[in-house]
């Protein structure tokens, strides 16, 4: 299927470098998903993982001289795009319900005996707000979120 002239097999160092880059991207993405609390950043990390996979696929494809890998990359990219659309809708919904992009805002499926996981140190950047001028209230103030004080604002 492959035209004989098209792809010369790449030498091994090229493959190794390519796989290294792909692995680095993938692991960075994995760490990002596991560590970051911001929903959009989590999604970003997931995309990063996908890109790492794509790089690996391309490296393998060059190595074997087979276009199949690169064809799969095109598939992956299109799937990633669709997935991005769906995921961002989900993040939007999550933000609408809690007003925050914090994955730790969603703990209601925990075991009933466990306590809610809270932040023990709120960084200085989030501590006392600067004093704002007091304006005459216009309209109804929104209800304060009871749990908001327990967790940091900036994620």
């Amino acid at each position, binding site marked *: 299927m492959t035209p004989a002239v098209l792809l010369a097999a790449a030498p091994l160092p090229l493959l190794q470098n390519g796989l290294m880059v792909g692995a680095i991207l993938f692991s960075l993405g994995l760490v990002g*998903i596991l560590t970051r609390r911001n929903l959009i950043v989590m999604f970003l990390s997931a995309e990063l993982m996908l890109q790492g996979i794509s790089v690996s696929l391309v490296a393998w494809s060059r190595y074997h001289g087979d276009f199949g890998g690169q064809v799969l990359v095109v598939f992956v990219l299109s799937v990633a795009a669709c997935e991005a659309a769906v995921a961002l809708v989900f993040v939007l919904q999550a933000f609408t319900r809690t007003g925050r992009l914090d994955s730790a805002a*969603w*703990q209601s*499926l*925990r*075991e009933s*005996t*466990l306590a809610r996981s809270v932040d023990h140190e709120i960084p200085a950047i989030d501590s006392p707000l600067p004093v704002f001028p007091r304006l005459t209230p216009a309209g109804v103030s929104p209800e304060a979120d009871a749990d908001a004080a327990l967790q940091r604002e900036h994620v």
Partner: protein
Amino acid sequence: MSPSFLLVLVPLLPLVAAIVTVLVGRRLGSRAHLPAVAGIAAAAVVAFVLLVITARNSGGGEHPRPVDMVTTLWQWATVSDAYVPAADSPAAVPGTAVGADAHAARSFSIAVALRLDPLTATMLMIITGVGLLVAIYSIGYMHDDPGYPRFFALVAMFVFSMSMLVAASNFLLVYVFWEAVGACSYLLIGFWFQKPEAARAAKKAFLVNRVGDFGLAIGVFLLWLTYGTLDFHDTLSPDGTILPGILGQTRLADVSGYVGGAVGTAICLLLLLAACGKSAQLPLHVWLPDAMEGPTPASALIHAATMVTAGIYLIARSAPLYMACPGALVTVSIVGTSTALVAALIGTVQNDLKRVLAYSTISQLGFMFASLGTGTLLGFTAAIFHLLTHAFFKALLFLGAGSVMHSMGGVIDMRRFGGLRKLMPITAATFLIGSLALAGVAPFAGFFSKDEILASLHHKGWPSAHGEHGEHHAFLPVLPETAAAGPTLHDVGYRGVADHGEHTIAAADPVGLDALDRPGVWQALFWMALVTAGLTAFYTFRAVFMTFTGPLRVPEEAGDHAHESPRVMTLPLIILAVPATLAGFVLFTTEGLSRFLAATPSFTAPAVTATAAPAVFHWDLALQGTLAAALGIVIAAVGHLGRRSDGPQLERWLGPVRPFFENRMFIDQLYTAVIIKPVEAVAYLAAMFDRGIIDRLVRGVARLPVSVGNLMRRLQSGLVQRYALAGVVGVLAIIVLLAWRL
């Protein structure tokens, strides 16, 4: 209408009556007595027919033939090849092997078999006769009781159990029905179980009986080991050999068929323990006075006439076994006589009419044991004779006491009423007859039977006076033929009999009981018995005078009850008064009972018949007995007749001894301290162990899954990232695994 069928009917009819009463008693209401009374009446008729048949078969005359009709109903249990008798043990066939190998493996087989012989026929007649009169009496006595049907069911059940006990032809069956009568007694004593004293008395009776039952169980085990069978009668094994039963004709005919020495004495003492439990002898007598908490007809039936005589029956039935162990015999007499004396002493200070009669029962049973222990045909016959007359007059006295209690509104303390002879003439007259019989005044029934008991004791104490050379229990004249034939089946260490053809007492006597069989001991027993006879007359007439003489006093609980009892209650009293008056005289002068009982297989053992003496009326003993009785009556009259009948008169003279008697010689307190408290302590320790250690262990085991679950719970945190982490860790684990494989 063969005798076998009739013999089965006697227990069967009351059993059916009991079942019917249980099933439909509630619906019958005030007629719930009908099945029980009908069943027992029918059984009484059949028992009388059996008595006649047995009397006719025994032949009468000078040498009655042993009567022994066995009916086997069904095979209860069989274990084949259970026992291989040693070649020289008494379990082997004593020389009358019919067929092949006499030492083949024996099977343990229990057949439900009944045996009819004169002793059984007599006991059946007593049980059903007195049972019938008590049942009729109870129609009036238990009239308003809410447990009316239950009472009659229990009485019928009891008559069934007791009839089976005396008819059973197997020691294991005897044990079963021994327990059954104990259970019926428990149920009847605790009839009014809502009353705490009654419940406690029932428990006490059952537990004390249990001690005796333990003795009987071990005795049955020893009997099986020694004799290889538990049947009384001879049975045929499948290969044609006669398996001699313990009390069967084959073994009885053989002079040395019974084991003496240590094993034999152990068996006899264990049976004595059982008899002490059931017949309320020292030291197991404590339950009988408390058993008076039950309804009076139950006391009359069970604790006067029938159940307590089961012990006498057992020992009389096992007479051949006892004849091989002179030490055991003298122990029986010692136990009986001391019990008689102690009970009589305690009975002199009782104020409760029923308690007086209870101690009187214990005392009279002691007399019977004393007579059984003499080991002579006269002794055995006298014991059964006294059993018969005692059944009549004691039942009469108890029913009379019940009549008094009924009309005094439940009050039975003699200090609170008096002078009832005008109020209740029939009760007073019959009670007087019963008392005269109990005190042993001629010509009432008790006189003759007590005279025979004193005669048997006298025979043993002063043998020369009766024309016998004073010999010890040389009941086994080793016949020259068997000695010459070399070592026989029975010449082994079991009894240590030297096979030299000479008179020997059983040499293996580890406990030294045989040494007690001396005329000196028997003389002491005779004097104790005579003193007890005097005391009997004293306390009996003290009760009579306190209750029936003097000015009329009625306690206020009587209300409108204070009149003579209805006909249904006084009729049994009158009926019982007849044999209480005449039975002794008739049976003694015609020698009917002694000839009749001599046809019992147990009493045809050569050991027993060797002691037969011609029945003579001993004028000197009669005089001594009558003097003792008269002395007792006079002292009672001095203390309690007429105007002095309302309180403790003579007891003041007893001084410091009196609280000792009043507290029943502190035996109950002794048992509490020595037995009950340690058992309670052990139970407390066991409870602590159970709660502290075992419960903790169980709860600890229960906590384990809960702890593991708590650990697993922490994984479910609700945080998405932690779930993602779990997934990543799992993937890593798979990768490592695969990498390792490769």
